[in-house]
Every structure is written in C-alpha cells, then in structure tokens.
C-alpha cells in the first residue's frame, strides 16, 4: 500500500476556493485591470494595481509587474485557513533597520527609496553572471501568489500574501556552476535615502547580508517576492525584490536585494556578525531552541488585541515541516 504524507502547507480539499468564486474574482480583477488601463492612459508604462484585499493602498506599478499580474496564479499556496494580516499592519509594522529601528520607521522613511530603475548584480559561481535589470530577472517567470506565515525572531508573526516566483527559477536562470554551495544576498546601501545607515550608534556593518545553503535556496518554498496583497511591494516591505523563506525567522528574508552571489563558503550574515550566539546562519523557526534573551515557544500572531492577546504556540519550521529533509542528521540546537 502506498502511504502518502502530504506536505503540511498543502491546502485541504475543503480549503480550496470554489471555482465559481475563483472565476468571479478573476473576472473582477480583469475588469478592474481594464478600468485601470483606461484611467492610466497618459502613463502607459504604469497603471493602478487592482485590489483583491481589503484596504490595500492603490499604487503605481511598473510595466514589468503589470504585465505579469494578469496571468498570475492566485493562492498557489495558502496558510490553511488562517486569516490574513491586514495590509495596514503588514506595511506599518516592519523591521527594516536601514530606515530606523522603530517598527514605524520603515513606513515613515522608505518613501524616498528609489526603486526605478533597479538592477541586481549576479556574480560568483554562475555561468551567466552580470548586472541584470529587474525586468530581465522577472521576465522569464510566471507570477504566483503564496500566502505564507511570517515568524519574526522577536516572537511576533503575521500571515502575508506574497506575489512573485520561486527562488529556484531565478537561480536556474543564472545557472550556478557545480562549485556553488551557498547563495549570498545583499541589500542596497544608500546613506542619503536610508537614514538608519547614517546612525553613528548602529552595530550593523552595512550592507545587510543574508545567505542560504544552495539546497535551501532551491527548495520550492523559497520565494522571490515582488508584490504583496495583489499589488507591487511597498518600499518598507523590501521593494522591488525581496526574499521570503517562510520556515526561517523573518530576518533571513532579506529586502531590496541588489546583489546575489553564488559562493563556495557560507557567507557571514549581518546578524551572525553582530551576535553569533543569538543569531545563527540557519535561523530555522524552532520552538525548542530559545533565543538567549527570550523564549521562542510562543508567538504573538498580529494583529493582537490589548485585551485579547493573540499568543499562539510556535510550530517547528513555522509549520513548513516539508523542509525537514534539508536538515536531516543535523543538530538544530547547535546549528540554530
């Protein structure tokens, strides 16, 4: 007998949106797309993004985003019926230390970030290195929407619908050589527009650096996001291109990427450099391994009310247990 264990992130039959609803939403989106295209005649390259989620601020999206949106595969992965964090919270409660250490700083300060034009340097152990424009990086890939849980190392969490494509697709596009073992990512340095980088008391040595082992990066759940909530990424959420690794703490999901390097040695990541005893390279969500300064056994799923604190148990790998194979035989208390 063949026993099949479905991955825990797979939607149940009962959770699948009925076709009629699905189709009617598609219709709605097509309608609003057409409307947007009409209202945006003067600026042909950009148009208002249609909204599928409540209270989503309208935005001007670049052409490369707009072109892909119509054919996007919506809800390719869902978060098992969990309610989605309101757009306002997901965009006004952020860690993006380039814009300040307060949770409201990114929303307040990221407006000046220049996201167009945007290029990403791809180098190291790849057969197609070079400086890619964001258009060229995105063009070959179809958009998918993935609703992922996001668990911050600070013990809060959200549920966010991302738009983008698998990181594996991007890596195949640039074709790593056989000696590539790790992927190293870098965030923009722009002291003029990123006030956090001007702070004289910051412990961070800019640029912000993150990394994954190549097999982690090739895992189908590792995702490159260019949008969220059916629209283009807001600057404070890492526009125009960010990583989303849902089974790891949020700081691994590096924002506003300007450089991707395929390397042989494990890159020294920003948080490892600041406090290696607190933030390891792997940073897998693990309720059994506490941060030295606080417990990771529970999390506050936001929004959390003052008189109804939404404290829930943290799940191993943030509930994405299908990644466990990547760490077979590893002591995750040592490789935290």
């Amino acid at each position, binding site marked *: 007998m063949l026993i099949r264990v479905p991955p825990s992130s797979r939607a149940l039959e009962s959770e699948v949106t009925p076709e009629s609803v699905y189709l009617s939403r598609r219709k709605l989106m097509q309608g609003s797309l057409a409307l947007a295209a009409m209202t945006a005649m003067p600026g042909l390259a950009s148009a208002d993004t249609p909204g599928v989620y409540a209270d989503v601020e309208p935005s001007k999206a670049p052409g490369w985003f707009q072109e892909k949106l119509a054919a996007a595969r919506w809800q390719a992965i869902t978060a098992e019926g969990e309610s989605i*964090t*309101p757009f306002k*919270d997901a965009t*006004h*409660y952020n860690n993006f*230390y380039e814009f300040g*250490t307060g*949770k*409201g700083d990114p929303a307040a300060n990221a407006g000046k970030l220049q996201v167009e034009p945007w290029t990403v340097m791809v180098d190291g152990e790849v057969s197609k290195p070079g400086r890619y424009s964001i258009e060229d990086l995105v063009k070959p890939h179809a958009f998918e929407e993935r609703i992922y849980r996001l668990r911050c190392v600070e*013990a*809060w969490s*959200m549920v966010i619908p991302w738009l983008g494509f698998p990181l594996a697709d991007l890596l195949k596009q640039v074709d790593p050589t056989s000696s590539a073992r790790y992927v190293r990512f870098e965030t923009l340095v722009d002291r003029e527009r990123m006030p*956090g980088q001007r*702070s*004289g*008391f*910051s*412990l*961070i040595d800019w640029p912000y650096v993150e990394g994954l082992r190549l097999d982690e990066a090739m895992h189908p759940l590792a995702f490159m996001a260019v949008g969220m909530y059916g629209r283009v990424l807001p600057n404070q959420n890492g526009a125009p291109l960010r990583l989303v690794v849902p089974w790891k703490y949020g700081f691994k999901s590096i924002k506003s990427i300007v450089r991707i390097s395929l390397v042989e040695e494990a890159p020294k990541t920003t948080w490892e450099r*600041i406090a290696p005893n607190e933030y390891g390279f792997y940073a897998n969500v693990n309720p059994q391994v*506490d941060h*030295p*300064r*606080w*417990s990771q*056994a*529970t999390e*506050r799923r*936001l*929004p*959390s*009310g*003052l008189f109804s*604190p939404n*404290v829930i148990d943290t799940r191993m790998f943030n509930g994405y247990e299908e990644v466990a194979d990547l760490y077979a035989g590893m002591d995750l208390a040592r490789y935290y």
Partner: protein
Amino acid sequence: MRYRLWRFGVFLAASVPPLYWLYCAAFNLLGPDPGKALVDNLGLGALILLLITLAMTPLQQLTRWGGWIAVRRQLGLWCFAYAALHLSGYVLFIAGLRLELVLRDLSERPYIIVGALAFVGLLMLAVTSNRFSIRRLGRKWKTLHRLVYIILLLALLHMLWVVRADLGEWLAYALMGGGLLLTRVSVVASGLQRAGALCRENPKKVEI
C-alpha cells in the same frame, strides 16, 4: 501642606501618559501589537521617572527650592507604579498569562532576572516610603534607599540587553543616569551647592 498645587500638577503629569496609552490602545493607535507597545512604553516611562526622581536632589542643591524635594517621593512611587504596570503587561501580553513561560524566563533569561531584581528593589523602596517606616528604620532607612542607585544600574542593564542593533537611544539614557550618579559624588554635590549660592547672590550676572 506646602506646594499643594505643585504636587497636584506633578500627579496629573505623571498619570497622563498611561491613560493616553490606554486611549491609544482602545482606538487602535498603538499598531498591531498594542500589548508589546504598552509594555515598552511603560518600561521606558519607569526609567525616565527614575531619572527624574534622581534629578530632584541636585536640582534642589542648585536652586535651593524646596519644591523639588516635596515631589521626590511621589515621583519615586510613580516610577514604581509604571514598573509594576510594565511587569504586569509583560505577564499578560508577552507571556499571555502562561505562568510556566514566566517562570522559565525568570530562571533562564539574564535580562528578565535583572529586570525582576530592579523591580524587587523598587518594591522594597515603595513599601518603606511611608512616614512610619522612616521613623521605624531610623538610620537604616537612608542606607536602604541608597538601593536606588543600584536599581538605576540594573534598569539600564535590563534595557541594554534588549537593544538589538542601535545603541543610540540607550546611550542617551545611560549618559543621563551617569550624570545623575556623578552629582552624588561629594565634590560635585558641593560644587552644585556653591554654583546655586552664586546664582542667588548675583542673579543679574547669571542672567546675562
């Protein structure tokens, strides 16, 4: 009672922030994690009140105005009240009333232990802040209340251990705390008193 209006003003000023935060929380103005925001605000509020309390003595030395000392105990008690709310907020909002988590934090996390020690210190000072205790403890009272300096250092350490990547804000409070501790060095204290006397003798000269 002297300085009645002044005392009442200080009472009002100290009670406004918690009420304001509660109002913000009720109207969703504290963001999606209001419990955490409230705990953070109350903790920082307690530290600021501790610094203000400690500023009363040097201010009195400098100005010779009795009003500073008249509100010192009240401010100390406010600091205790903020700290007590900070602690209850942590138990309620961060630990979600799961006592096993609180106990684990208390046995494993240095910054929680340090914070708890500071709170126990404040509690000791608060319960001995009444006239009866002052009379009963006699000389020992003064020795006991010197604990406040240790509490300040513990509170600063507690805050330092929460900092993740930017020391700027912490440094500002640490410098203020350090400055206030310096005024307790006898040379500095008598210097302050002399400066205060000088101001009173030649008020015009200082104004220029």
